[in-house]
C-alpha cells in the first residue's frame, strides 16, 4: 500500500469519527429538547395540589377537634391524635412529589418552613393534650375536693363554729376559682394566688386530716390556675400558627412553578419544532447529496459493467481461441495419425487394382474362350489363339500369385482401416467424456488418451514413461482436466526440443487428494519467467503459436476443482508440474470455465 493511500485512509477514518460525533451531538440536542418538553408532570402536580387540599382540610378539622377538646365536647383525645399519621403521610408525600416534579429552591424553603410550622403545631398539640387533660381533670375534681374538705371536717367532729369558719375561708376561694375558670382574668388570678397563700397558712390551724384535704384542694386549684395559663397561651400560639396560610402559599407557589414550567415547556416545544425543521432540512440536503452521488456512482458503475462485460467477452474469445488452437494441434495430430494408415490402405488398394485388372483380363479371355468352344462353326485357329491367351493369363495369375497377393493386401487394408477406427474410437472416448460435465474419472485414462492425441508431437523424439500408482477415480470435469493435461504435455514437448523423456506419474497424495506429476527433462523455466507463467496472455512462444492463455486457464481449471498446480523447475534438468486434485468435489463443480459449450468431437 502506498503511503498516499494510507494517508487517505487515515484522513477518511478521521472524517468518519467527526461525522459520528456531529450526529451524536445533533441527536443529543434533540433528546435534550424532547426531554424538556416532557418535563411537566401533570399527574404529580395534581397529586401535589390535591395533597395540599387534603392537608388544609385535615388541618382545619384538627383545629376544630382541638377546640372541641378544649371545650370538653370531645371526651377523649383520639380525634386529636388520629390526624398525626395522616398529616405525616401527606407531608412526606408532598416532599416526594416535589422531588419528582423537580425541585426549586423557592419551593424547597417554603416546604421546609411549612414542615417546621407543622412540626411546631404537632408538638404544641401534644402539649395541649397533656395540659388540657390535667386542667380539665383538676377542674372537674374541684367540687369533689371542696366537698372532701367539708366532709372531713364533719367526719372528724370539728366544732360547728370551726366548720362554719372553715367553710367561710374555703368557699370564696373555691367559687372564685370556678368563676376564674369561666372567665380567666389577670386581676382575679392575682387575687386568687394571694388567697391560696392565706389558705395554706390557715390550713396549719386544722387537724391533720382536714389540713391534708385542704392541701389537695389547694394543689388542684394551683394546677387549674397554672394549666389555665399554659392552656391559654398554647391556644393563642396555636391559633397564631399560620399552617393554613402556609398551605395556601405552598399551593400558590406550586401552581406558579407549574405555570412557569408550562411556559418553559411551550418555549422548548417551539424550539423543538424549529430544531426539527432544521434537522429535516439537513436530512433533505444530505438525501439530495446522497442521491446525486448515487447517480454518479450509477454512471461509473455502468461504465465499469460495460468494461467488465467487454473484458469478459474478449476473455471468452481468447479462451475459445486457445481451445481452438489446442484443437487445431489435436486435429493436426489426428490428421497425421489417420493419414498414415490411410496412405497405406490407399497404396494397398492401388496395388490391388493392378492385380485385379490382370484377373479381370483372365476372366474376360476365359469367358471368350468358353463361348467359342461351344460354337460349332468356330475357327480352329481362332480357338487356338484364344486358348493360348487364357493359358498365358492364367499362368501369369498363378505364377505371380496374384490371388495370394490380393488376399494379403485385403488383410493389410483391413488392418489399416482397423488402425483408423481405433483412432476414431479413441476420439469418441475423449469426446464422450464431455457429455457429462462432472463425472467419475480415472486420470490415468485421461493421461493415456491425451498422450495418444499428442503422439504426433512426441513421436520419434520423446520417450514417454508412465509410472502409475493406483489412484481412485475422482469427481471432475474430464474434458477440462484433459485439457490441462494436454496443455502441460504440449508445453513439455515444446520444452524438450530434439530429444527427451517425459515421465507421467499418478499417486495418492493423502486421504482427500491425488497427485499427478508431469515431468520433462527440458531446459527448465527461467526464474525471471517463473512468476508469470500462470498470468493470462503470457507466452514465450512466437506470436501466432500460442495465445498465452494455456497455463492460465489450466490454473483456473485446477483451482476451480479445488486443486493446486505446483511447479518445480531447475535449469537444464527439467520441469515437473504437480497437479493435486481432490477425490470428492465439495459441491458439484460444474461450469468451471463458464463459456464452454463443449466442442463436440463426436463424428456425426
Amino acid at each position, binding site marked *: 500500500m502506498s503511503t498516499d493511500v494510507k494517508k487517505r485512509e487515515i484522513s477518511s477514518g478521521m472524517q468518519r469519527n467527526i461525522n459520528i460525533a456531529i450526529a451524536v451531538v445533533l441527536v443529543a440536542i434533540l433528546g435534550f429538547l424532547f426531554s424538556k418538553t416532557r418535563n411537566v408532570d401533570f399527574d404529580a402536580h395534581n397529586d401535589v395540589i390535591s395533597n395540599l387540599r387534603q392537608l388544609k382540610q385535615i388541618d382545619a378539622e384538627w383545629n376544630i377537634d382541638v377546640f*372541641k377538646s378544649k371545650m370538653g*365536647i370531645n*371526651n377523649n383525645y*383520639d380525634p386529636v391524635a388520629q390526624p398525626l399519621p395522616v398529616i405525616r403521610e401527606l407531608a412526606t408525600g408532598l416532599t416526594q412529589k416535589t422531588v419528582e416534579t423537580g425541585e426549586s429552591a423557592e419551593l424547597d424553603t417554603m416546604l421546609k418552613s411549612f414542615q417546621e410550622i407543622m412540626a411546631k403545631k404537632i408538638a404544641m398539640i401534644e402539649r395541649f393534650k397533656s395540659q388540657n*387533660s390535667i386542667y380539665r*381533670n383538676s377542674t372537674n375534681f374541684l367540687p*369533689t375536693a371542696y366537698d372532701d374538705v367539708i366532709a372531713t371536717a364533719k367526719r372528724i367532729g370539728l366544732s360547728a363554729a370551726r366548720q362554719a369558719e372553715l367553710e367561710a375561708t374555703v368557699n370564696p376561694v373555691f367559687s372564685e376559682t370556678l368563676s376564674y375558670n369561666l372567665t380567666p382574668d389577670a386581676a382575679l388570678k392575682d387575687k386568687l394566688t394571694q388567697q391560696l397563700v392565706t389558705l395554706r397558712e390557715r390550713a396549719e390551724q386544722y387537724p391533720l386530716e382536714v389540713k391534708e384535704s385542704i392541701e389537695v384542694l389547694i394543689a388542684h386549684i394551683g394546677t387549674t390556675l397554672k394549666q389555665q395559663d399554659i392552656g391559654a397561651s398554647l391556644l393563642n400560639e396555636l391559633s397564631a400558627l399560620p399552617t393554613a396560610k402556609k398551605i395556601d402559599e405552598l399551593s400558590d407557589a406550586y401552581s406558579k412553578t407549574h405555570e412557569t414550567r408550562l411556559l418553559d415547556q411551550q418555549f422548548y416545544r417551539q424550539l423543538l419544532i424549529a430544531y426539527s425543521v432544521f434537522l429535516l432540512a439537513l436530512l433533505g440536503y444530505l438525501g439530495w447529496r446522497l442521491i446525486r452521488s448515487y447517480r454518479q456512482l450509477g454512471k461509473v458503475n455502468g461504465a465499469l459493467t460495460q468494461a467488465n462485460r467487454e473484458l469478459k467477452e474478449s476473455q471468452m474469445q481468447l479462451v475459445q481461441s486457445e481451445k481452438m488452437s489446442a484443437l487445431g494441434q489435436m486435429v493436426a495430430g489426428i490428421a497425421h495419425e489417420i493419414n498414415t494408415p490411410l496412405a497405406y490402405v490407399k497404396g494397398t488398394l492401388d496395388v490391388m487394382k493392378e492385380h485385379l485388372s490382370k484377373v479381370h483380363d483372365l476372366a474376360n479371355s476365359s469367358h471368350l474362350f468358353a463361348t467359342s468352344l461351344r460354337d460349332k462353326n468356330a475357327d480352329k485357329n481362332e480357338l487356338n489363339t484364344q486358348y493360348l491367351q487364357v493359358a498365358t493369363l492364367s499362368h501369369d495369375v498363378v505364377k505371380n500369385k496374384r490371388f495370394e497377393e490380393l488376399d494379403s493386401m485385403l488383410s493389410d487394408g483391413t488392418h489399416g482401416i482397423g488402425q483408423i477406427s481405433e483412432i476414431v474410437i479413441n476420439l469418441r472416448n475423449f469426446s464422450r467424456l464431455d457429455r457429462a460435465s462432472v463425472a467419475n474419472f480415472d486420470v490415468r485414462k485421461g493421461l493415456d488418451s491425451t498422450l495418444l492425441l499428442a503422439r504426433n508431437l512426441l513421436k520419434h523424439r520423446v520417450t514417454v514413461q508412465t509410472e502409475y500408482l493406483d489412484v481412485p477415480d475422482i469427481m471432475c470435469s474430464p474434458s477440462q482436466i484433459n485439457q490441462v493435461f494436454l496443455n502441460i504435455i504440449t508445453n513439455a514437448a515444446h520444452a524438450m526440443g530434439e530429444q527427451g523423456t517425459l515421465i507421467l506419474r499418478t499417486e495418492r497424495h493423502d486421504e482427500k487428494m491425488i497427485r499427478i506429476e508431469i515431468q520433462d527433462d527440458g531446459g527448465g523455466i527461467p526464474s525471471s519467467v517463473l512468476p508469470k507463467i500462470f498470468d493470462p496472455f503470457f507466452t514465450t512462444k512466437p506470436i501466432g503459436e500460442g495465445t498465452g492463455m494455456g497455463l492460465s486457464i489450466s490454473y483456473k481449471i485446477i483451482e476451480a476443482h479445488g486443486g493446486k498446480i505446483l511447479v518445480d523447475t531447475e535449469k537444464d534438468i527439467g520441469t515437473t508440474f504437480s497437479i493435486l486434485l481432490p477425490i470428492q468435489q465439495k459441491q458439484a463443480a460444474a461450469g468451471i470455465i463458464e463459456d464452454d459449450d463443449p466442442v463436440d468431437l463426436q463424428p456425426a
Partner: protein
Amino acid sequence: MLGGLLSVIAALAATISMGMAGQVLAQVNEPIKPIPLEMKLDERKVSLGEKLFFDKRVSEDGTIACFACHGYNTGGADRTPLSKGIRGQQGDVNAPSIFNLAFNSRYSWDGRNESLEDQIKKLMVNPKVMGTTWEKLTARLNGQADYAELFKSVFGEPATAKNIAEAIVAFERSLFTPNARFDKFLRGDKTAITEDEQRGYQKFKAYGCIACHQGVNVGGNMFQVFGVMGDYFKKRGNITTADLGRFNQTKNEADKHVFRVPSLRNVALTPPYFHDGSAATLDDAVDIMFQYQLGRPAPKGDKELIIKFLRTLTGEFKGKPLQ
C-alpha cells in the same frame, strides 16, 4: 367547620336519646371506645410477619424471637420488670404489650417513635434487643430458602429493610383484642359487666384516670408527666436515663419525665407495671397513679372497684379470651 358542627349535634342528640331511651342503646358518648371487631389487612404480609415474629433467626445470634418478650400468653408482654435481650443483656425498660398497637398514636414508653415502622427500624439494630443490622438481616433472610421464596411471592422481590418492616407491621396490626367485656358493655350489653365493675368505671372517670387513659386504647394517645401532682422519681430514687422520658429526644426541660400514657387494654395480664417495671401488681400501680397523677391517696374501696373495672378491659384474641 360544618362537619365539626354536625358531629357536635350528633353527639348531643345521642346523649339526649340515650337519656330518654334508657340503657338499650350503645354507650356512644363514653370517653372510652370499643376496639373494632375487624380490621382490613393483607393476609399474606400478616402471615409473613408472623413467621418473622416467631423466628429466632431474626436476632443477631439466633437466640431470641420477638415472641420471647411479647408472648401471647402473657398479655403481649413478658412479665419481667426489665426484659433481657440477646446475650442476656438487660434492657432499660419494661416490655409493653404487643396487642392493640394499631390504636396508639405514638410508640415506646417515651413516645419517640411516631410509627410502628420507625419503631421496628430502631428495634432491630438496638444492641440490647435484636442487635443486628439491616444489611445482615436482609442478607440472612435472603440466604434462607423459605424466606427467599416467601418474600418473592409476597412482595415480588427479595427481602429489604422496607418490606421486612412492612410485613412485621402488618402482623402487629393484626394483633388486636376486641370484645373485652367492657367493650360489650359499651356496645350496649348492660349485663356484660357487673355492678361493681360499672361502679369501678364510674370511679375511674370520677377520680380523673379518664383524663389521661381514654380513647379506644384507654391511653396511648398523649404524653403526660409521670408525677403530675408529686415527684415520683424523687421518691423512687436512682434515676436512670430512661426515666427522663421524652426529654431524651427533645432535650426540652418541660419534657423531663414525660411519658406516653400507656394503654390499659389487657392491663390485668401485663404486670409488672410502668416503664421501670417497678409496680409488681395492679394495686401498686393504681396507688402510685392516685398519688402522683391525681395528687391524693386512693380510698381503698374505690381503688378495688377501679381494679375490678380494669380487669374488664381484657379482650379476646382470635375469638378466645386472653389469659
